[in-house]
């Protein structure tokens, strides 16, 4: 599969569907994450109310984003921190490099950060002879495999245990670990032991932030492994790479989101480690970093404000939408060819990268609506996906054949009697063609559909016929059936 090319979604999807390892890895996601989230939500009767409050809070912040960012900056500085405002990924890369150079950094440890992925920080640092060491186990695995993340919270979710065993053997053999481990506990241990010294050796530690608190100038990370804490505590400098929309007004407001995040993401009551960091170590602190820098990335977010995709800026990156997406579950994250994947990625990527290059992504959805149902901040993902489809059509990105097909369909759709006639003929025709097996293996003009599965032969009448009949029954005073 070719990574990071959203232009070949269809080709990637075909390859993904044929990949048995991927299919078995993705099946675990559906079996685990979906019921875990539901159970966690059911245990907290106030979940829906908290979710409503979270949504309101985010909308309030977005409407006053300039104010809260300035407030954050003021308080961060008062605590001895530095804030770097970066309009583009390049600005952010340069800001990080400058800080690293100030201490002649050779290695930096990294906690998981989607913004670091968004600005392709690892490649950039390597180009400048600084070794980035991913410490989140999932990120570590994909760094070894030289792959981008395939999920916003479980970056290596597409890998089976066997694949990780092979990968560890391949990369750890030169470190004297020549036995192929197959027990997950032993594999976790091996990575733990290898990374341990790196935390102590690193000159700079880079983390992301789930939230920024305006009131205190703090950043918050939420993790389970403890790697983020080692990353930000042991080196001389702690850099937080984050983006504008992460700011919330107060500690109490952040708390509301913390109650939503872990439950939506992993189905935990609370993640193992939630850490609030404010400025560098204090004069009488015994440990902690001597400098604290916050890289605030815009990269198109300020233009999303006030636009029809503003709602996307509420996203708290829990991953629930992708966990529940039938398309994501089938094709995995790499198929999208972008840093952000699944329904939230299909809405965010066109905003960050332009709709022309990403036009397949908003189409990679059945608009079934599960994503919106589980989103803790009620982002209307299906509506936003439809909006991108329209924009892409208007921009003339849609190839002639598709446009022609749509006009063809529209011609009938605007003439109900003709549509009705056409549908009746089509249904009867398909029923005849599929009469032997009750399904169709191949269908003209719909190869893309029937390549992956069979089309069940239609049964009974068309929708319109059934509708008319039901209306007649209702008029006669019958029940619904």
């Amino acid at each position, binding site marked *: 599969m070719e990574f990071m090319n959203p232009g070949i979604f269809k080709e990637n999807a075909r390859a993904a569907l044929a990949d048995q390892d991927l299919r078995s890895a993705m099946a675990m996601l559906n079996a685990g994450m979906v019921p875990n989230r539901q159970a966690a939500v059911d245990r907290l009767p106030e979940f829906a109310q908290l979710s409503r409050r979270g949504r309101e809070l985010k909308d309030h912040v977005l409407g006053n984003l300039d104010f809260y960012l300035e407030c954050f900056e003021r308080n961060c500085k008062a605590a001895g921190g530095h804030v770097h405002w970066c309009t583009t990924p390049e600005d952010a890369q340069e800001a990080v490099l400058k800080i690293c150079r100030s201490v002649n950094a050779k290695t930096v440890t990294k906690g998981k950060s989607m913004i670091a992925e968004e600005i392709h920080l690892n490649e950039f640092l390597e180009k400048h002879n600084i070794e980035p060491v991913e410490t989140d186990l999932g990120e570590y695995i994909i760094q070894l495999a030289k792959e981008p993340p395939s999920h916003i919270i479980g970056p290596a979710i597409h890998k089976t245990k066997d694949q990780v065993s092979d990968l560890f053997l391949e990369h750890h053999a030169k470190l004297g670990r020549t036995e192929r481990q197959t027990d997950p506990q032993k594999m976790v241990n091996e990575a733990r032991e290898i990374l341990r010294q790196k935390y102590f050796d690193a000159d700079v530690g880079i983390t992301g932030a789930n939230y920024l608190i305006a009131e205190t100038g703090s950043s918050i990370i939420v993790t389970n492994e403890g790697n983020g804490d080692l990353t930000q505590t042991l080196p001389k400098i702690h850099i937080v790479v984050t983006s504008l929309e992460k700011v919330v007004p107060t500690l109490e407001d952040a708390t509301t989101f913390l109650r939503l995040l872990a439950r939506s993401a992993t189905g935990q009551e609370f993640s193992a480690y939630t850490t609030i960091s404010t400025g560098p170590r204090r004069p009488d602190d015994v440990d902690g970093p001597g400098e604290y820098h916050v890289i605030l990335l815009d990269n198109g977010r300020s233009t999303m404000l*006030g636009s029809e995709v503003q709602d996307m800026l509420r996203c708290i990156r829990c991953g629930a939408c992708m966990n529940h997406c039938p398309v994501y579950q089938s094709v995995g994250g790499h198929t999208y060819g972008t840093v952000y994947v699944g329904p939230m990625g299909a809405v965010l990527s066109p905003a960050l990268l332009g709709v022309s290059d990403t036009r397949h992504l908003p189409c990679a959805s059945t608009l079934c609506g599960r994503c919106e149902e589980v989103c803790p901040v009620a982002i209307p993902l299906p509506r936003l996906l439809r909006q991108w489809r329209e924009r892409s059509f208007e921009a003339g990105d849609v190839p002639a054949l598709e446009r022609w097909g749509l006009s063809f369909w529209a011609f009938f759709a605007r003439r109900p009697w003709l549509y009705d006639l056409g549908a009746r003929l089509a249904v009867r025709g398909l029923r005849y063609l599929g009469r032997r097996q009750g399904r169709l293996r191949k269908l003209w003009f719909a190869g893309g559909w029937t390549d992956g599965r069979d089309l069940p032969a239609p049964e009974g009448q068309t929708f319109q016929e059934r509708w008319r009949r039901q209306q007649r029954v209702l008029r006669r005073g019958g029940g619904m059936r």
Partner: protein
Amino acid sequence: MKDAKTGPVKKSGRETILGAIRQSLGRPALSADARHELDDHIAKHRANLVPARGKGEHAAQVERFQEMARAAACTVELVASEAAVPGAVADYLRANNLPTRVTLAPDDWLGGLDWNSQSLLETRQGAAGINDLVSVTPAFAAVAETGTLVAFSGKTHPTTLNFVPDYHVVALRTSQVVGAYEEVWARLRKVNKQGRGFTMPRTVNMITGPSRTADIALTLELGAHGPRSLHIVLIDDQAGQD
């Protein structure tokens, strides 16, 4: 996106971003009145919504804390007085075949306990180094809602003690248990009060169980990078209250 480099004078990232935000919102910077209102929202820092399980009688919260902490894979032992802590720590380490060289937080209360009574233990106070396997620390508070411990960094509590050693033991008093997170923030605002506001410690750690990962084929494993186990010695300092 607007290009910062097209103008005659290059605007700073800060000006560009704030300007772009205001343009998108279709308004200039907020008026003094509007700012005042938002400052007020911050000054009041109201709790949004505290779930019912975070409210109620203290004794019930202490129960819930233990239940939730155990659900998060902690072990909890209740002791009758602080004098029993060194013995409880020694017994725990012995019963689980763990190392007996222990790093204590440089905290007067903790250091003042009679560790010499435990001939088995070898203790020192300080931050954690790469070879430290067991740490014993106090905590600032504990939250019943999710079985979460809250610790602040400072000269008496190095953050490394919470993450570097393989085994973390926390000595906690029942009077430190609260129902909801917001109560911890209220206590923090009080003890660190400065002028009209308060100072945040460099690090606030909210810890719910030992370190874990599900990054290998979604199988949950404890002890990813932080402690493999988290043991709480809960001192009942409120016998007869409530």
